[in-house]
């Protein structure tokens, strides 16, 4: 039987990678991801995990080594955050089009300047269009489960795409939670050995990563786009299989008290737990408020989101990312596009909150709902609003 233990979420993720029996882990430490790769290097050093741990010289090198390892047919894992993720950026676009199923946990953190080691989603939103499958975890258990799920989905021959599991830095990475660590036997049942469609093998030579002349580049990118969109089927199937084996069911979009709700908060990641508390408080005071949480960010679950939004009249979308010079934050933009000219579409209001580790409290969620209700009656001047910002 799986054991439920009090464990730091980062350590639990590293244990999940061990259970997944990763072969190669090229990694560079960066706060707040450090404990994940630190624990993995210990597991490799003490012989508990039979893998190559490559202490690379930078995140750029980490992702480059990941590409090589995955191309050679190795189950490959890495983890990063913030400035480190940005340093990887040049390489991140490569494994998706090359169909290399690398798994990465990103402990989300703000970007400089000013220097901030604390949590928001700006680091990953910069990397929105890298062509990886992306999920967002709400709590420690989910971080562990989504890590195992990522290997299962990424390496599926129908998918063969890299995958990121986003966990909020500190709020998840450094918190000790009761987490059920699955049994090896159960994990083996869920996660078959990695058998890539193609790999670098001198006995059967192929070339990976060639030049794409103008006659093929568009087709190569459209092939990736279609592969990413088609991956949703496997993402869902793998969550069904996960539920059968482990008893925990995940959906691309989760709803909380959305029945008959007029205003829906829309969140991603760990602030959703606070949002649920806020929804309870507002329901207690008679307000028809609910919560929709996006777990699968890429490919975006359009059908599931429309269904989850139901007949709500107002969506209050929270981005943990300030979009300088843009019309609104990335999640807000996504939903405005999704509902553009859809008959009966809800009014969508975009809020920016929780930057650089600022807490988003129950009161802030209440403020957001109040503002969204007011804006539904009288259109706001701006297309998004930063919550909790001081002027003086």
């Amino acid at each position, binding site marked *: 039987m799986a054991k439920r233990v009090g464990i730091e979420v980062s350590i639990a993720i590293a244990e999940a990678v061990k259970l997944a029996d990763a072969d190669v882990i090229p990694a560079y430490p960066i706060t707040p991801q450090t404990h994940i790769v630190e624990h993995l290097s210990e597991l490799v050093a003490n012989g508990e995990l039979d893998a190559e741990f490559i202490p690379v010289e930078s995140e750029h090198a980490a992702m480059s080594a990941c590409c090589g390892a995955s191309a050679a047919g190795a189950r490959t894992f890495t983890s990063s955050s913030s400035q480190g993720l940005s340093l990887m950026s040049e390489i991140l676009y490569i494994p998706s089009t090359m169909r290399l199923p690398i798994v990465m946990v990103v402990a989300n953190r703000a970007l400089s300047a000013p220097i901030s080691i604390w949590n928001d989603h700006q680091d990953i939103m910069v990397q929105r269009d890298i062509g990886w499958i992306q999920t967002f975890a709400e709590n420690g258990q989910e971080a562990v489960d989504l890590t195992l799920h990522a290997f299962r989905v990424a390496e599926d021959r129908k998918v063969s795409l890299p995958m990121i599991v986003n966990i909020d830095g500190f709020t998840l990475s450094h918190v000790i939670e009761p987490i059920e660590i699955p049994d090896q036997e159960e994990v083996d049942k869920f996660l078959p050995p990695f058998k890539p*469609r*193609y790999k670098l093998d001198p006995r059967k030579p192929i070339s990976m990563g*060639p030049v794409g*002349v103008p006659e093929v580049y568009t087709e190569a990118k459209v*092939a990736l786009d*279609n592969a990413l969109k088609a991956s949703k089927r496997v993402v869902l199937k793998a969550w069904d299989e996960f539920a059968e084996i482990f008893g925990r069911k995940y959906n691309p979009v989760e709803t909380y008290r959305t029945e008959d709700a007029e205003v829906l908060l829309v969140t991603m990641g760990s602030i959703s737990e606070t949002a649920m508390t806020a929804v309870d408080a507002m329901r207690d005071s008679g307000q028809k408020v609910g919560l929709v949480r996006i777990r699968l960010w890429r490919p975006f679950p359009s059908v599931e989101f429309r269904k989850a939004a139901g007949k709500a009249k107002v969506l209050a979308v929270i981005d943990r990312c300030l979009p300088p010079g843009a019309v609104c934050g990335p999640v807000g933009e996504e939903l405005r596009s999704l509902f553009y000219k859809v008959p009966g579409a809800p009014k969508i209001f975009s809020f920016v909150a929780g930057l650089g580790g600022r807490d988003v409290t129950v009161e802030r969620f209440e403020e957001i709902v109040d503002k969204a209700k007011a804006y539904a009656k009288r259109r706001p001047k701006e297309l998004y609003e930063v919550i909790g910002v001081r002027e003086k």
Partner: protein
Amino acid sequence: MAKSDAIVGWKTITFGCHVLEPGNTASFRTGDWRSQRPVLDKEKCIKCGMCYIFCPDMAYDQTEEGYYECNLFYCKGCGICAHECPKNAITMVPEEG
């Protein structure tokens, strides 16, 4: 990716854009990039092979008579052979049409 493979749709492009046939660059016609071509004066040629050595595309082959002949399927017309020829036996002639 070889140009001979280039006319493919997104459904038929190789998985991950991999090149599955080793050495298929040989079928990549680079000759159509050329704006000028090398013409050899056999009277001046001493068969030294400098053109063969310097050609960056390995477009030169030796004939049975010992002369070096440029394969216009690959020759991009860079003119290095003409520049390096110690006997000025190679002239670059503009491609017409």
